[in-house]
Structures are given as C-alpha cells and as structure tokens.
C-alpha cells in the first residue's frame, strides 16, 4: 500500500486522478458485489423450494460466510482510507456490529415494550397507566410479586448459603475436587431439563397405587399418606425453589471456593494464635475477606430468581398459587395476546432487575473486568 502511494507521487496529475477514481470504483465495487451475493442468498432462502437439506446447507454457508464477508469487506474499505481515519474507524469494525445488534435486539425492543405498555391489547388505543395499574393490583399479579419475593429470599439465600457451607467444608476434606464436581454437575442441566427430572421426584398418585414419585415413595415406605406436593399452598413454592437451589448451589460454591483459596493463610494463622475458634475465624476473617465475592454471587442469583420462569412453567404452570412475574408476562403476551399488559409486566420486571444489575456490574468493575 505505502509503496504505491509513494510511486503515485512521481506520476502525473492524470495518473493520480485515475488512481483516485479507480480506488473509489474498487471501493464501491467490492461492497456492491458483497451486497449482491448476500441479497441473492437471502432471496434464495426466502423463495426456494429446494430440498430442505440444501436450504439448510446454504443457510449455514450464507449465514457464516456472509458475516465473514461483511467483516472482510468493511475491514478492506476501512484500510483504503488514510491511516489517521483508519485508526479511528478500525475499532468500530469490531465493536460496531455488536453495538448495532445489541441496539436492534435489546435496546429498541425495550423502548418499544415501554411504548406498547401504554396501549391496549391490540396496541391500538392509548390507555395511559391502566396496564401498570393492572400489574400492581390484579390478584394474580400480587400473588406473583409475593412469590418472586419468596424466590428471591429463599432461592438466593439457599443457593448462596449452601454454596458457602459446602465450599467451607470441601476446603477441609481430601477429596475436595470430587465432591465439588458432583455438586457442580446440576449446573450443566437446563432449567427445563431440571423441571422434567423433578416432576418425577414430586409425582403424586392416589393412596393405594404405586408411587412413581421418589418423595412419595419414601413417605409411603415409612407408612405416611402420599402428598400432592404441588397443590399445597405456599409450600409448593418452596418445593419449586428447592430445584433452583439444587441447580445454582454449584455455581455459588465454585466462585466462593476460589475466593476462599485467596484468603491468606497468614491471617487465619494469626487468628488461631489469638485464640479464635473455627466459627469465629469464619465469621470474623473469612466472610469479611470474601464479602465482595458473596455480593457478586448473590446479585447474580437474585437476577435469576427475579426472572425465574422455566421451572414454574414446566412444573405447575403457575397453578395452585405458584405464579411468578415472568410466567404472568408470558401468559398475557402469548396466551391472551394482551400486548399492553404483557409489555407493562416486562417493563416492571426490567425496572426490578436494573438496580441489581447495576450494583452487580459495579461490583465486577471493582474487581477488574469492566
């Protein structure tokens, strides 16, 4: 590149002009070709009646190749500009698409939800705050808020509490890695998958039939009456929260455990020499030392509990008094097609999550990262 520029100076004005025109033409040619290729691929995918296998293959080549092509073309165009401009543009070749996609898929939809939340079911008439009034006064919504609070307290408390306990205990045993792996394993299961598994644990059959549910099998083995766990008000929430705790304890444990390893043994030694017992060391040395980790883990799980949906949806569908905010949003949106209420509930949920998220990010940035 630089050699051509230097040699260009030696040529006459005409040559320089030609080169300039050529550069513009080439610069336009490549994006245009890229556009044509992408467009042809899009038209093909949209209208073709080719066998599905071929369409799938083309879609993959077109999708992945298209992104690569776009990146390559943009990069190529930017490199054609002067060095100072290129330097300023270059970062946006990389971060630009991510920002654009975030804006398109996250920021604009959020604004649109906010807008729709002031309209009626079909998004035709402005209704002011009616949807928000519904969100805060409807009996099922109030039930959802209470239940989400329960999820937040018991779910976060349970996962972080057990995580801390197990991390502390595992730190002191020989087969630490083995135990931690086992407890971490549920993390690999999706919420829906966990729901399916736990349905079998909570399954209920009338007395006298074979109990296919683990819990009821145990209860009847010891001579008890089988219980319909899901229909017990309030307690059924606790049974659902247990699933989340089972899933998230591993996550909390791993993070806390790594923080534990960072507690300098000299401080603990000093504590011991001063005559502190094990509990006192945990309370006065270890916990304050790993406090910021605990906060980060808690806020992450709080966000999960606020958005909880999959478990409730697969297990009880919000029946028997287990409704949560996200399941109400889904029902309003996709079962009742009330876009206004659905959007309003979504906005309420976003507003509830944002402070926690903000706090979480601040904690992260304190410990590098952002």
């Amino acid at each position, binding site marked *: 590149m630089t050699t051509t520029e230097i040699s260009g100076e030696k040529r006459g004005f005409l040559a320089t002009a030609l080169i300039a025109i050529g550069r513009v033409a080439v610069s336009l040619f490549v994006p245009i070709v890229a556009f044509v*290729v992408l467009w042809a691929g899009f038209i093909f995918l949209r*209208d*073709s009646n080719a066998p599905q296998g071929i369409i799938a293959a083309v879609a993959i080549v077109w999708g992945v190749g298209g992104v690569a092509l776009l990146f390559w073309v943009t990069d190529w165009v930017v490199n054609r500009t002067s060095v100072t401009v290129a330097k300023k543009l270059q970062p946006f070749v990389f971060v630009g698409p991510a920002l654009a996609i975030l804006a398109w898929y996250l920021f604009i939809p959020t604004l649109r939800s906010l807008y729709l939340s002031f309209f009626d079911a079909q998004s035709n008439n402005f209704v002011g705050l009616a949807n928000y009034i519904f969100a805060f006064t409807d009996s099922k919504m109030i039930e959802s808020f209470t239940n989400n609070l329960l999820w937040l307290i018991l779910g976060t408390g349970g996962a972080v509490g057990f995580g801390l306990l197990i991390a502390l205990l595992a730190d002191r045993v020989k087969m630490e890695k083995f135990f931690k792996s086992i407890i971490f394993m549920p993390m690999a299961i999706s919420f829906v998958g966990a729901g399916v598994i736990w349905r079998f644990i909570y399954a209920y059959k*009338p007395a006298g039939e074979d109990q296919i549910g683990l819990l009821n099998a145990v209860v009847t083995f010891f001579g008890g009456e089988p219980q319909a766990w899901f229909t017990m008000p309030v307690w059924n929430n606790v049974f659902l929260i247990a699933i989340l705790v089972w899933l998230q304890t591993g996550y909390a444990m791993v993070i806390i455990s790594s923080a534990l390893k960072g507690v300098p043994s000299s401080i603990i030694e000093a504590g011991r020499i001063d005559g502190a017992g094990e509990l006192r060391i945990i309370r006065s040395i270890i916990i304050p030392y790993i406090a910021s980790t605990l906060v980060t883990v808690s806020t992450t799980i709080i966000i999960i509990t606020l958005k909880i949906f999959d478990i409730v949806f697969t297990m009880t569908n919000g029946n028997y*008094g287990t409704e949560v905010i996200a399941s109400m949003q889904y029902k309003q949106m996709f079962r*009742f097609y009330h876009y206004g209420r659905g959007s309003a509930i979504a906005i309420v949920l976003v507003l509830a999550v944002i402070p926690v998220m903000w706090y979480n990010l601040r904690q992260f940035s304190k410990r590098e990262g952002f």
Partner: protein
Amino acid sequence: MKKTVLVLLMALLVLSSVFAGGQADAQASEEKVVRVFGAFVDEELRRFEEAIVPFEERTGIDVIYEGSKDFETLISVRVEGGNPPDIAALPQPGLMYNFAAQGHLVPMWDSLIKTVDENYAPVWKELGSYDGTPYGVFHRVNAKSFVWYPKKAWAKAGYEVPTTWDEMIALMDKMVANGHTPWSIGIEAGGATGWVGTDWVEDVMLRTAGPEVYDKWVNHEIPFNSPEVKAAFEEIGKIWLNPKYVYGGTNTILTQSYTDSPRTMFENPPRSWMHRQGNFVTTFLQQDIQDNLEEELGVFPLPAINEEFGIPVLGGGDQFVAFNDRPEVRQFMEFLATWESGEIWARSGGALFPYINQDLSVYPSSNDRLVAEALVNAKVFRFDASDLMPGQVGAGSFWTGIVDWVNGKSLDAMLADVEKSWP
C-alpha cells in the same frame, strides 16, 4: 494476493448466479400446491392425510399439511409476518375473529356457501362467521357431553345406563354402597390445566340454565358470578368435592392428567366406573382396550337435568379458513365442506363429522355411531364456551378459577375474580 481476491470475487459472482438459476428452475417445475397449517399432529395428522388422498388423486393438487403443538403462537407470528399458510385449521373461534377483523381471511364465496348450506346444520355456518360474513369450514369436530364406562365391569356389577340426572345420582350412590368410586376426573393438562373442568361447567350450564342463558353467559351479557353460573358450579361441586364420588379426591382431580384419568376405569378391579369426556377419549385408553372398543367401552349421553332443554350436546372443532385466494385453495376448501372429505377418517374410527347428509353406517363402532347420531339429532348444540370467551377468561381465569376452586378457594371469591378478569 490480488489474484486470490480476484478468484474469490469470481467465485462469489458465479455462486450468486447459481442461486438465481436454481430459483428459476424451482419455479418452472412447481406443481399446484396447497399448504395447510394446523394444531393436530402425529396420529391425527396421518388420518387427515389419508382422508384427503381422493382429492389429491382427482385434482392432481398436492396438499401439504403441517402441524404444530405451538400452533396458536406460530399462526399469529406467520400471519403478522406476512407469511400465512394457504389454509389454516383454527381450533379457537377467537383466532378466526381476530384474523377476520384484521382482514387477513378470504370470505366464503358463493359456491362454497351453497355447499355449506347443503351439508351442515345452520349452527355450523354461524360458528364460522364473523360479523355476518362466513369464513370457516368445519371438518372434524368433537362432541363432549358423553359419559364413558367399562362395559364388562358394569355388566358384572349389574349397573344400568341412567337416563335422567336423578337416576345417575342414584347409580352413583349405589356404586358407593358397593365400595366402588363412581367418577375418574383429571384436569391436569400442562399449560391448559383446568379445561376439563370448564367442559363440565358448560355441560351443566346447558342442562340447568338452558341455551339462551348459556349464550348470554358466553357473550358476557350476564356476569360470570351470576346466580345461574354459581348454581352450575354448585351442582358440579356436589360430585367433584365429595371424595366418595371421585377417585382420589380433589388432589387427584388436580394432579392427574386428563389423558391418564380414563385409564383408571380399565384396571382390575376398576378404580373408577365413569368418565365424562369428548368422543376423542378413546385415543387415551390402554392399547388392548383400544383394540376391543366395541366390547370394552360403553357410552351414554350426560343425562338431562331440566327436561325442557332435552339432551344438549356440547362440542367444538377446528375450522378451516383460507388466507390466500387461488383456484386450488378454493377447490380444497369446497372439498372439506363435503362428507367425502370425512368418510375415510370416519371409517377408521375415533373421529366425528358434522355433515347432515353423512352415512352413519361407516362409523366402525356402535359408540361412534351413538355419538354421531346424538350430534346430528341434538335439539341444542353449543360450541365450547371457553373457546368462545376472550382468551383472558376462556384460556385463563376460567381454567385457573377451576383449579383454585378445587384446591379450596371459596366459590364466590373465585367467580368474582373470573368476572373481574373479563376484559
């Protein structure tokens, strides 16, 4: 480097022309295709495809049916995205009203209206109409006001089919005296838990309050917590909330799936002796029972409570509506409005069709025939109310209301909540 770039560009150009070429070829060889989208899958999908073979052979039109369990979400997405199927089978009239109001549907044309008038009772055309304009053609339908029982066990115990509501109550008490549990009821249905209960309420409403009050109730001309509705719930409560009458009591009502509950009638000894459900119940039964339906399964219409209204039949069905107006789409819609489109399916059993000029003798079992006859001859036929009510109620608070009521919520509070949720 430059060479490579050149080669690459050439390759891309060639590739794009291949795309364009391939597209042209595909269009040239295209035969006439009608794309149908619906909610039924698996076995029902296969039966539907069998039933339309005569049409495909006669006209050379290829009908491609695609079914999805997420039909109701997907159809809205496809229609709003400007990519509707040619024809859709809509399970809920409310969906049809929405699409018709938004102008997405092709209204019935004259020759189709004529065919429908000839082949159906007037009620079906009314059910397929929005704002006076007919759109929907009913094909396979269901009728739900039926009680099924294990024939062999009944014969052994000496039970006889009741013909009035009081006889039925007397029979239930006799069963209890014999140590038998009369009913199996299960309303668990995943995201739709509670709908079985709404069918009971509707059936009893038709029998106690009559079709006129029923229509007012559906259209919200009387409140959901009006005395007539409350009376229907109380009538049901006498059976449902009495643990002697229902296998496993309320906990089993709530947690047993509607597909599992009829199976309890065919255990040895039977755990339950009667089950109220639509004609589609046979598909839920144990395979060995399904193979011998004629000997194993008996049926009688849910008896009348008020003789004035006769024995009303409650039912439902998918209505086929056209989104695209092409000659082959019209041809297929007209085919669906004739008994020919149902005959093959009816012959294989478990399906019911509303055509007035149908040949009842093709139904393979006496149960199917009894149900079809009751449907064609019913003085009062009404569409499933919960499917006609706004989604907020019909697929929302009515379902959850049933669940909450069975789980101990007071009837008045529940009815008031449902009433409040009416949009």
